[in-house]
C-alpha cells in the first residue's frame, strides 16, 4: 500500500519521538485481517452515516453531524488504542465512526439519532451519543466545543494518581483549537507531563469558517512546541498512517507525556443536516475533496493489493446495508423515554 510521506515532526520537545517514515509493508502490530475488519467497520459507518442523513430529510432524525471524510482518522487512531488496550477516549461530536468502532451496535446508533428509549449515552436526554458510554471507555458530556479537552487532561491525571497507566485520547476540531480551553488543557498537560494525546481532526472548516480565518499557521502541530511537547501532522485520509502515528503517540504519552496529533482530513458533507455548504465552499473544492474519500480509497487499495476481492467488498457493503436496515426498523419501533424520567437524576443517587 503506497503511503503518503505525511508525518512532519513539529515539536521540539522530544526529538527521539519523531514518528518513523512510512515503510513498505504493514506497520507494527497491524495484520491484513485488521485491515479487512477496519474496512468492514468503515463501510458500516459510512452506510449508517448516509442513512441518518436520509432519515433527517424524512423528519425522523432532528439533527446529525456526519463523519464522512473522517473515517480513516477515527478508525485508524481507535485501532491503535484498542490494540494498546489501556486507553480512554474523550471524543468530539463528529466522531460517529469512533464511537461505533469502539463498540456501539447500529441499533444503538439509530436509537441515539432518533432519541429513543435505550439510547446508550444518556437514554436520549442528549444529542445523539453524547453523555457517557463507560462500557467502551468513552465520555463526552457536551458538544460545547473545546470543553472536553481539560476534562481529558484531568482524567489522565487521575489515572496517574491511581498508578494506572491508562492513556487518554481526546479529539477535537480545527475550530476547537481556537478556544482558550484548548490552550489551558495543553499547557497543563505539558507542565505536568500528563499521559494524554490531543488529536485534532483538522478538516479545515469550522462550520463555514475556513482554516486561515481560524489560525494564522499552516498547521496546528506547530503549537505543541510552545507547550514543550511534540506535535505531528499526519494525513488523516490514510488509515494505516493514522494507526501508526497514534500507536507511537500512545507509547510516548505513557512514558513521557502529551503529544499533539493533527490529522488532516476533509469534511465531505455539510457541517450538519442544518447546513448548506455551498454557501461557503465551491463545487470544485468539494469535488477535489470527494476524490480523497478515505473509505472508497481504502477499499480500492485493499483490492489493488489483493487483500480483498471486489466481490468481498460488495459483500461487505451488502451486509452493512442489511444491518442498517434492521437497525433502522428496530429503532423506529422503539419507544420514546417515559416523560416522567425527565425529573430524575439531577443529582447522583
Amino acid at each position, binding site marked *: 500500500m503506497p503511503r503518503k510521506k505525511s508525518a512532519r515532526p513539529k515539536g521540539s520537545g522530544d526529538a527521539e519521538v519523531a514518528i518513523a517514515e512510512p515503510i513498505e509493508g504493514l506497520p507494527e502490530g497491524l495484520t491484513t485481517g485488521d485491515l479487512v475488519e477496519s474496512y468492514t467497520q468503515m463501510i458500516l459507518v459510512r452506510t449508517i452515516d448516509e442513512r441518518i442523513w436520509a432519515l433527517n430529510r424524512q423528519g425522523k432524525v*432532528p*439533527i446529525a453531524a456526519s463523519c464522512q471524510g473522517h473515517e480513516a482518522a477515527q478508525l485508524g487512531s481507535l485501532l491503535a488504542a484498542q490494540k494498546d488496550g489501556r486507553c480512554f477516549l474523550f471524543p468530539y461530536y463528529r466522531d460517529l465512526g469512533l464511537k461505533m468502532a469502539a463498540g456501539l451496535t447500529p441499533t444503538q446508533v439509530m436509537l441515539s439519532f432518533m*432519541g*429513543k*428509549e435505550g*439510547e446508550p449515552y*444518556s*437514554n*436520549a*436526554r*442528549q*444529542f445523539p451519543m*453524547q453523555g457517557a458510554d463507560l462500557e467502551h471507555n468513552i465520555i463526552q458530556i*457536551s*458538544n*460545547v*466545543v*473545546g470543553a472536553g479537552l481539560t476534562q481529558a487532561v484531568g482524567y489522565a491525571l487521575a489515572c496517574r494518581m491511581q498508578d494506572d497507566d491508562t492513556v487518554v485520547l481526546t479529539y477535537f476540531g480545527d*475550530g*476547537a483549537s*481556537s*478556544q*482558550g*480551553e484548548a490552550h489551558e488543557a495543553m499547557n497543563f498537560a505539558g507542565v505536568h507531563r500528563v499521559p494524554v494525546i490531543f488529536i485534532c481532526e483538522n478538516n479545515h472548516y*469550522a*462550520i*463555514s*469558517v475556513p482554516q486561515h*480565518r*481560524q*489560525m494564522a499557521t499552516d498547521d496546528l502541530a506547530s503549537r505543541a512546541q510552545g507547550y514543550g511537547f511534540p506535535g505531528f501532522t499526519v494525513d488523516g485520509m490514510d488509515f494505516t498512517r493514522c494507526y501508526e502515528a497514534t500507536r507511537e503517540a500512545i507509547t510516548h504519552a505513557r512514558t513521557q507525556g502529551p503529544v499533539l496529533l493533527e490529522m488532516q482530513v476533509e469534511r465531505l458533507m455539510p457541517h450538519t443536516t*442544518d*447546513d448548506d455548504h455551498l*454557501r*461557503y465552499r465551491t463545487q470544485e473544492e468539494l469535488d477535489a475533496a470527494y476524490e480523497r474519500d478515505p473509505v472508497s480509497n481504502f477499499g480500492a487499495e485493499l483490492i489493488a493489493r489483493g487483500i480483498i476481492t471486489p466481490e468481498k467488498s460488495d459483500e461487505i457493503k451488502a451486509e452493512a446495508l442489511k444491518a442498517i436496515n434492521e437497525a433502522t426498523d428496530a429503532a423506529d419501533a422503539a419507544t*420514546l*423515554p*417515559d*416523560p*416522567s*424520567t*425527565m*425529573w430524575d437524576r*439531577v443529582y447522583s443517587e
Partner: protein
Amino acid sequence: MAVKNVIEAVREALREEMQRDPKVFIMGEDVGKRGGVFLATQGLIDEFGESRVIDTPLAEASIMGIALGAAFRGMRPIPEVQFSDFIWPAMNQLIGETARACYGSNGVLQVPLVIRVPYGGGIRGGLFHSQNVESIFFHTPGLKVIAPATPYDIKGLLKSAIRDNSPVVFLEHKKTYRLVRGELPEGEYTIPIGQADVKRAGEHITIVSYGLMLHYCLEAAEAVAGEGIDVEVVDLRTLRPLDKETVLNSVKKTGKLLIVHEDNVTGGVGAEIAALVADEAFEYLDGPIRRLCGPDVPTMPFAQTLEDEYMPNTDKIVQALRKQAAY
C-alpha cells in the same frame, strides 16, 4: 405594512443600523458568508464587506473581549454568540469587564455594544442548544437585558439597543425566529428600552411573561376567556431595567399574578417579579403569587417526550390560570 418573521426583523434592524452608522459592525462565528447559523446576518457581508461583518475564530471569550475593546475606541460592535449555550466562556468578559467598564471608570468609558444571543428551547436542542440564560444577566447591574417576543418589538428594540451607549444583552428566542410572524411598519421606528407592554388587557389575573412563552400565554388567555376568566398579559420585553410600574399597576388592578417563563424556576426572573409584587403591591394581592416555569432540571432533554415534559405550554398555562381564578 409587510408581514415578517422574527429573523427577518432582526436582519432588517441590523441592516438599517449598519447603513445609518458606519461605526456599527458585526462579529461572530459564521456571520459572514454563512449569514449566521440562523441566517440573521444573511447578505450583510455582501453589502458591508468583510471588515464590518467579521467571521471570528471559534472562541467566545475573545469575541466578547474584542468587541469590548473596539467599543472603547468608539466603534459600536454587535458580537453574536451562536447559541446562548456557548456564552459561558465569555462570561468573564461580559459580567466582569463589560458590565463594569462604565462604573469602574467612573463613567469615563462608554460601552456601546449589543451582544445578540439566540436562546431557548422547544427545538429539540437538548441540554446544550436550548438554554435560557437570562437570569444571570438580569442579575447584573451595568447590563441592559432585552428579550422581545414579536417581530415588531424585536426590530424596534434592537435598533434602540444598537444606539444605546450601555452594553445590551439582546436575547432572541430561537423558536420564535420562523414561527412568529407579525407586521412591520415600512418606515423607521424604535421602541424605548425599559418599557413593558400590556399585550392583552384583562381584569381578573395578571400574567407576566416574555419571549416565546408570551405567545403561549396569549393563547391561554384566549382559551380561558370563554370561561369568564379575563386575563391581562404583560410582556416584559426589557428584563433589565425592569418596568416595575407596568407590572405593579397590572397586579394592583387584577389582584392575582401568574408568572410564566421557560427558564428553571428557582432563582429565575420570575422570582424577582414575585418579590417585587410581594413587597410593593402586597396590599392588593388577592391570592398567592404563582409561577409556571421550567422545572429544576439542567435545561431541556433531547427526546421529544422529555422536552415536552419540560416545556411550559398553552395547556399547562390554561390549567394554572384556572387554578389561580379558582383561588
